[in-house]
């Protein structure tokens, strides 16, 4: 089963780290990325770089800022191939954002049948 681990860091928590701490936290993120079960992932630029496109009737709207109007925005994600939810939750608990006051949302991916996957 594949899971997306959506990382919502506590705003400012990573930026507040001293340089050496930041380095070691960053290394933790990379170590998780290098886990053989980890199929991919990305670290997103801050929410204030986001631009949102949404339906606006006659023409679509292009709006400055992230989609959700909340303080906590998606900071990055992993895609994990785990044998079950417990395994995914264990992995999620090792994401540094959790320890730093943020959260990780674990969502299974819709399984795509092999013949239609490209």
């Amino acid at each position, binding site marked *: 089963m594949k899971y997306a681990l959506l990382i919502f860091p506590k705003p400012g928590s990573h930026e507040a780290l001293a340089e050496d701490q930041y380095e070691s936290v960053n290394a933790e993120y990379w170590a998780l990325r290098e886990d053989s079960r980890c199929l991919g992932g990305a670290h997103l630029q801050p929410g204030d770089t986001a631009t949102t496109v949404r339906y606006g009737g006659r023409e679509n709207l292009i709006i400055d800022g992230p989609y959700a109007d909340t303080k906590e925005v998606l900071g990055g994600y992993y895609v994990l191939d785990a044998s*079950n*939810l*417990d395994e995914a939750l264990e992995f999620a608990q090792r994401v540094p954002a959790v320890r730093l006051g943020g959260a990780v949302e674990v969502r*299974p991916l819709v399984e795509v049948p092999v013949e239609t996957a490209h």
Partner: protein
Amino acid sequence: MDLAEEAAQEAFAIAAERWPRDGSPQHPVAWLVATGRNRAIDLVRRERTLQHKTRLLKADQPVASVDELDLDDSTIPDERLELIFTCCHPALAVEAQVALTLRALGGLTTEEIARAFLVSEETMKRRLSRAKAKIKLTAIPFGVPADRLLPDRLAAVLAVVYLIFNQGYPGRGDLAAEAIRLGRLLAELMADEPEVHGLLALMLLHDSRREARVVDGQLVPLAEQDRSHHDQAKVEAGHAALAQALALRPAAGPYVLQAAIASLQAEEEIDWDEVAVLYEQLERLTGSPVVALNRAVAVAEAGEPERALELVDSLHLGDYRYLHSTRAELLRRLGRREEARAAFERALGLAATEPERRFLARRLATL
């Protein structure tokens, strides 16, 4: 669900039922009982809707696996433990955990569960199917968790069983009987886990007082109960389960401690020093100020009201009304009338029910 808070509340209830209903001068916190009585009435009312509708499962009745909940296929009894861990997975909402457990292991129908939790059958059906869909779609494992996960996951299972017990305790007892049956099942399947025996002991000791505890819909505090109505078989089974728990490991968990307190409080002569020591251990485990307040009351009952007051004054419980009423009573006992008056007035301002208010007003008038 917050196990510590639940444990604290129950510990509080245990202590509360010790004090007589209407506050003779030597007893500090009688109003606790009035509150407990209200809760009991509430639960009795709820239980009436359940009544005989709940049917009990024989231990050997086949159980349904999660996928087969709506079918009547029999599955292998050996999988009951795996099943309960799946039903009580923390990724499911607590009410879904309870409903799934009752459905899969308690053998209750969806309609019966809906009645027990005062929701429509449709709502319960949706709750169950949403939970089953989540189990399937997110691959919640079917199995006993690995050792490193077991303590937390077992705590979740025990919390669900205890929740079922408390839902049924003061009333008709069908749900309580279900919970005890589940507790026995766990004690059989996880015989080396002291907390499993602790929970079973706690439930049996409480349940032994069922007949004596609620008379005409009113909660009767332990001190006033007709002990001949206590179920001796359950008392003995409770003591046996507690002994089993204590034999397994010296460091007692929250259920073992609460069972030990319940066991002491069932004695004719209560060893309050010992009760205070157990509350102290429970406080250390749960970090709950409510447990700490119970401990202070036990310390006062053991004959040390000054120390009890020191303990109470060190608690950060804000406007928790029992803090102030306990404090007031301790001051009254210590003859510090003016301070007692102020504390009673504060407690009176916080009182939530009419019996509490009447009790506190009477107290205040005697100062």
